[in-house]
């Protein structure tokens, strides 16, 4: 049986976007992405139009998954921060609330120290939002609230493939 869905509600989505915007501003970063560990982009902000954001999300998740595998091989629980240094742009990757990945792209207008500092604070905010989201999800499940997908019909599905 597949594991439960990962649901993001509107209120929390806005809060996450605000947190990302704040982080981007305070860290003087080019772009900031919040990515689910399975490779789906949750939210983003900044100069994102120059990036292929879907590929970025998937490769980041692959990168984190491979690094997690390496950590376990040497007996570590995880490597919570990854840093890739380029000639102009650099990437800072960190885990937030065990299930999401925060990706910060920055150049020489910022510095690794500043990004690390700001990411630390933003992570705390985002973890709190994730906690609220998880509680909301559990409450919706236990109240037996019908999901909009419970009424998907065969016709809906077939229509998807005829387009």
């Amino acid at each position: 049986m597949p594991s439960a869905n990962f649901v993001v509600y509107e209120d929390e989505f806005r809060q996450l976007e605000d947190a990302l915007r704040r982080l981007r501003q305070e860290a003087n970063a080019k772009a900031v992405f919040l990515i689910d560990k399975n490779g789906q982009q949750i939210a983003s902000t900044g100069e994102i139009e120059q990036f292929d954001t879907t590929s970025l999300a998937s490769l980041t998740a692959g990168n984190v998954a491979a690094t997690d595998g390496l950590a376990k091989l040497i007996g570590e629980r995880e490597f919570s921060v990854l840093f890739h240094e380029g000639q102009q742009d650099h990437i800072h990757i960190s885990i937030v609330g065990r299930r999401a990945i925060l990706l910060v792209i920055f150049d020489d207008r910022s510095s690794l120290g500043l990004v690390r500092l700001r990411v630390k604070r933003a992570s705390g905010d985002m973890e709190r939002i994730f906690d609220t989201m998880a509680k909301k999800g559990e409450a919706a499940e236990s109240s037996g609230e019908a999901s909009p997908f419970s009424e998907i019909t065969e016709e809906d599905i077939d229509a998807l493939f005829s387009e």
Partner: protein
Amino acid sequence: MTFINYASKEINCKIVYYGPGLGGKTTNLQYIYNKTAPDAKGKMISLATEADRTLFFDFLPLDLGTIRGFTTRFHLYTVPGQVFYDASRKLILKGVDGVVFVADSQRERMEANIESIRNLESNLKEHGLDLKTIPYALQFNKRDLPTSMPVDELYRTLNFKREPTFEAVAPQGVGVFDTLKAVAKLILIELRKR
């Protein structure tokens, strides 16, 4: 684990193509990529060795349209089929919603098919998933080869829960979209239950 975003009205599902090395998993994705309209697909990424064998994964994002007002996206991944890449295969199965098993129809690859299904079952188990209940489709690829086994023999050996099964010649696209549709449909039906 389907990712549902109520703010942007999106559903994202993950499909993994599994199977023995050189069975045609990447070819399935390449065909889908080539035949999909540009506005319905993203860039296809292949992390491959210099000899063009899958090293980590191939990735193809597809946008299938809307269902109940939600944009429905499928992220297609392949795993590296070669036996020694097991650690990578395990990672790619994380959060999977549905699996396509691409079997090689040739008799000499039968052992490899069986071993790969067993490997799939045990790797899914590590993620708390069960092959018996996960949305799953089976594809007998390379039907055009003279060395391919009869379909009923393949079916008896590899099909174990009456999962939808398709004959395919992936480079020509035979059976490729039928397989994808079948697993996508099973995933959406599963979504309805939850």
